[in-house]
């Protein structure tokens, strides 16, 4: 348990882990559908602290990774046009399209700008009335309300030179698609905390019931994830399959009603192709008819896109939880964060990048990832791994936010 001292509250972490170890009597496979959680799990070695019988399968929870290649290529094409200012979040810069990325488009003279908030892109449109400003609107339900508000504001303020290239994706349909897959090994889900802080938990009971899987709303911090796993394992061992909220400090059952009302006005549900997975019915949002004039796909006719994924990239299998990153032949050799074959090696929320950054080059392929000591540095390619010296234990931390567990909990 070499990582345990790095937790904010090592005593609490140990109690949660002891609880999990004591409860488990047989193998269980849990899936997280959140890139932030994947990152935390690998960064803190949580999967290695858990009992051997508890496997964490990384699902398609990295929004950067699942954005369809065709949409990335459209973004690159639009961003290359004279007269366009293309605005994006920073984590899209390195995502490989067919043969290039936004970073390269800027190097070639395209006006690509990174913004902190979509409202900044709207401001740029106001300041540049003679230019077309396009914002790259991707992400899960967490990121959709800010983009919806921005389009709403554009219409309200009569800003006509602004549009959104939209490729939003939704978590519940992805859970359904995973459960329907013939290869499915998933027995429970950790639901993404910030998605639920917007959407609430109302969509999940039906899924839990229909597929007979526990769904536990979980936060992002190491202790949150341990608590989410603990509650999930307890349910599995008892043969239950209910929706539980282990992130009550940020998630209310109704979510954020104002945000949900805005989403219902600005967006409508559509089929969406997920990169590496394929089309999942009713799994995305596009702009509704009322806002169609702000849709970049309508404003810029982009044709002649011919997408091509590198043949040796197996990120589709990684995104579906069928393959662990280090089991891919290209992992850490041909494919690194500096020479990524696929999006999962780019974003820090991508499973491949997380494995590369925090360990695993020394793991034998296809081996159970339960080595006692993880590699501290991913040094095989000469790329210095980030500083992974033990994080000093934060001082004066009390137990994390109050949870409301349904049974006696070590969380006080």
């Amino acid at each position, binding site marked *: 348990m070499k990582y345990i001292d790095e937790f904010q509250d090592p005593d609490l972490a140990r109690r949660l882990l002891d609880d999990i170890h004591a409860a488990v009597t047989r193998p269980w496979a849990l899936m997280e559908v959140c890139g932030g959680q994947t990152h935390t799990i690998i960064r803190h070695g949580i999967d290695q602290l858990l009992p051997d019988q508890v496997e964490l399968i990384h699902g398609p929870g990295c*929004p950067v990774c699942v954005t369809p290649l065709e949409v990335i290529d459209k973004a690159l094409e639009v961003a290359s046009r004279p007269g366009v200012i293309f605005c994006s979040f920073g984590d899209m810069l390195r995502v490989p399209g067919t043969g290039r990325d936004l970073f390269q488009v800027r190097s070639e003279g395209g006006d690509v700008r990174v913004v902190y*908030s979509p409202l900044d892109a709207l401001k740029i449109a106001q300041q540049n009335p003679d230019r077309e400003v396009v914002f790259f609107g991707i992400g899960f339900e967490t990121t959709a309300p800010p983009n919806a508000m921005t389009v709403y504001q554009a219409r309200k303020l009569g800003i006509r030179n602004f549009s959104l290239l939209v490729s939003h994706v939704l978590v519940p349909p992805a859970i359904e698609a995973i459960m329907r897959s013939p290869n499915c090994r998933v027995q429970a889900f950790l639901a*993404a905390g910030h998605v639920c*802080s917007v959407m609430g938990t109302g969509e999940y009971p039906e899924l839990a019931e229909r597929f007979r899987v526990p769904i536990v709303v979980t936060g992002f911090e190491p202790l949150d994830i341990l608590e989410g796993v603990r509650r999930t394992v307890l349910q599995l061992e008892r043969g239950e399959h209910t929706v539980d909220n282990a992130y009550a400090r940020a998630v209310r059952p109704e979510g954020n009603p104002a945000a949900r009302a805005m989403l219902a006005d600005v967006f409508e549900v559509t089929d969406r192709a997920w990169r590496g997975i394929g089309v999942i019915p009713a799994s995305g949002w596009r702009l509704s008819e009322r806002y169609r004039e702000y849709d970049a796909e309508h404003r810029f006719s982009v044709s002649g896109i011919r997408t091509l994924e590198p043949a040796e990239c197996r990120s589709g299998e990684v995104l579906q939880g069928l393959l662990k990153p280090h089991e891919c032949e290209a992992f850490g050799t041909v494919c690194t964060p500096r020479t990524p074959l696929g999006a999962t090696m780019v974003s820090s929320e991508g499973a491949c990048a997380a494995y590369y950054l925090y360990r695993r080059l020394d793991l034998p392929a296809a081996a159970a990832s339960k080595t006692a000591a993880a590699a501290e540095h991913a040094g095989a390619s000469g790329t210095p791994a980030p500083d992974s010296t033990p994080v000093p234990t934060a001082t004066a931390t009390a137990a*994390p936010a109050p949870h409301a567990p349904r049974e006696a909990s070590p969380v006080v």
Partner: protein
Amino acid sequence: MCLAVPGRVLDIEERDGTRMATVDFGGVVKEVCLEYLPDLQVGEYAIVHVGFALQRLDEESAKQTLDLFATLGMLQEEFGDPWELAAEAGGSPLPAGDGAPVEAQK
């Protein structure tokens, strides 16, 4: 992408008919839209994602999370120079371009 950071509201004003706040994230100050949490008050904490307050948070949890993020360098990742981060990740020089590549909020 889904990282949301707790921040404390320093002040609130209407701008273009929109409720906006100045929010402090452990020393980094940003403009944040409050339209989704209209009753949030000065001094309170909220979870903020890409410039929007999405959910209220109690002070103790917020401070713990901020401490953790600061320790892990996640605030730098969230609020640092994205071009530098991307260049570093890709091992390539910063691309040239017109104007400041990062549109800092005024």
